[in-house]
């Protein structure tokens, strides 16, 4: 029983990472109706930037802040320079652009930083916080940071005029132009935010999986499973789906066998697509972030 509790709690910690990446996927999906396959590699690349900053002597939280801002700028730039010109192309062209971005970031990271696995520091103490026996302080800390990020996003989208305009632009670009919203910039902003969220997820997961160009591959898959489970067009659902997948993954890893962890993600993806393609919250639009 204690072991199950332990696994569920640390599943929630990794689930938070999947939830963040799932949310990033959903944000871009809502605007483009496509899954950004490069989301994970963008996060990985940002994490390398954080690593380089820390190596050169910048304190952890300084590097954290610089990385989040740079990831945001990078996301905006990618939308403006690379995605915008092919915006109205056939879906296949866009898919290929996303896959190309994935490959480019992966090889660029390998070329600049080499493929050797690097340790990445955690900002949290090595001793478990509050003397608890269930979660390491990194797990607890990254869960807290994930929740803060999700809360900030919720407040931003729910209560600010800019957040409202971004939701409107993703839902109905034509009407948005008719109320004077600069739709193009809203989409670019969405890319920036998604990249920034991804960079936080990358920095939180790197101490556990270690830093290397392929570190986000599995995570993107879990996040995708989470997003599909919750409903790819529902931000709140995707977050919940991310947490569920995190817990399932951990529990399956212990009770069934850790070889089957990644298989679980694929099983979830296939099962959702077969049984309920819209996901848990895909159609009911009451959950919003």
């Amino acid at each position, binding site marked *: 029983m204690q072991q199950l509790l332990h696994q569920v709690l640390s599943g929630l910690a990794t689930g938070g990472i999947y939830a963040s990446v799932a949310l990033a996927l959903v944000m871009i999906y809502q605007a483009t109706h496509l899954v950004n396959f490069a989301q994970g590699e963008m996060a990985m690349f940002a994490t390398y930037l954080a690593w380089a900053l820390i190596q050169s002597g910048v304190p952890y939280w300084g590097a954290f802040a610089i990385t989040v801002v740079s990831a945001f700028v990078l996301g905006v730039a990618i939308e403006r320079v690379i995605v915008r010109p092919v915006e109205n192309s056939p879906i296949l062209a866009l898919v290929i652009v996303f896959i190309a971005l994935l490959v480019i970031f992966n090889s660029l990271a390998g070329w600049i930083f080499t493929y050797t696995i690097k340790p990445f520091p955690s900002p949290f103490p090595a001793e478990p916080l509050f003397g608890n026996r269930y979660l390491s302080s990194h797990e607890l800390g990254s869960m807290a940071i994930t929740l803060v990020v999700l809360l900030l996003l919720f407040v931003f989208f729910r209560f600010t*005029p800019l957040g*409202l*305009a971004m*939701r*409107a632009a993703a*839902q*109905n670009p*034509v*009407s*948005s*132009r*008719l*109320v*004077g*919203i*600069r*739709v193009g910039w809203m989409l670019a902003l969405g890319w920036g935010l998604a990249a920034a969220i991804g960079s936080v997820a990358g920095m939180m997961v790197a101490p556990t999986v270690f830093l290397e160009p392929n570190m986000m591959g599995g995570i993107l898959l879990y996040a995708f499973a989470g997003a599909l489970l919750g409903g790819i067009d529902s931000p709140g659902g995707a977050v919940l789906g991310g947490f569920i997948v995190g817990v399932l993954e951990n529990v399956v890893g212990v009770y069934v066998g850790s070889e089957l962890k990644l298989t679980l993600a694929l099983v979830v993806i296939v099962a959702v697509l077969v049984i309920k393609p819209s996901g848990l919250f895909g159609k009911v*639009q009451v959950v919003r972030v």
Partner: protein
Amino acid sequence: MSAGTTTATAAARAPALATERPASALLEVRGLAAQYGPTMVLHGIDFAVGVGGITTILGANGAGKTTLLRAVCNMIKTSGEVRLAGERIDSLATEAIVRRGVGHVPDGRGTFTHLTVEENLRLGAHTRKDRGEIGADCERMYAHFPRLKERRRQQAGTLSGGEQQMLAVSRALMLRPRLLLLDEPSFGLAPLIVQQLFEILKAINETERIGMLLVEQNAAMALAIADQAYLLETGRVVMSGSASEIRSDEQIRRSYLGY
């Protein structure tokens, strides 16, 4: 024969009108042409909306009325001259035209169906700088359309057609526009509601001096509140004149407006 003479006199009157009041025209359009792909939909149209005036564009389905409104705010490829209070706006992006004070109640209403009624209204005021007055303006819209107030927290997609139409008009008014483009506001509404809606539009036009370009199939209602009227047929203006003249001309009414 007499319909023919009216056409001739109306055509002769149109340019005279344009030269008579170029400075006072809020919207002035010359030689407006538009096409969807290779198909020409508008063939060089001239019309104007006076300051604080209501101009109506009448015509059957497919005459090009919706296209005309889309052309004015550059949602489609156009050529010709469009001036808002003297300033050329025909090369501006749609959102830039909106920012100059052109509100639009589009064909099919264009509400944000997943957002609440109140969020829709707030989006209407997206470009305004006076954030503090937006709440008060929402209340004014609720005063015009009490039904919207009852449903302010509901998703717009759950509203009835009539309520969505009220929402679309309110959202456009939230911009505090100088010019309001209305695409068939009576569409799908019960006659009593149409009556109310037009009374409200007229009242807003009179108290706030908002110019309106009203595209309608309901010619009787449109002519009742408009001061200028243009009759559109397959992308060409076939007749124009003051609304009262057109309304009182038996021949035009029978042959073109069908009431």
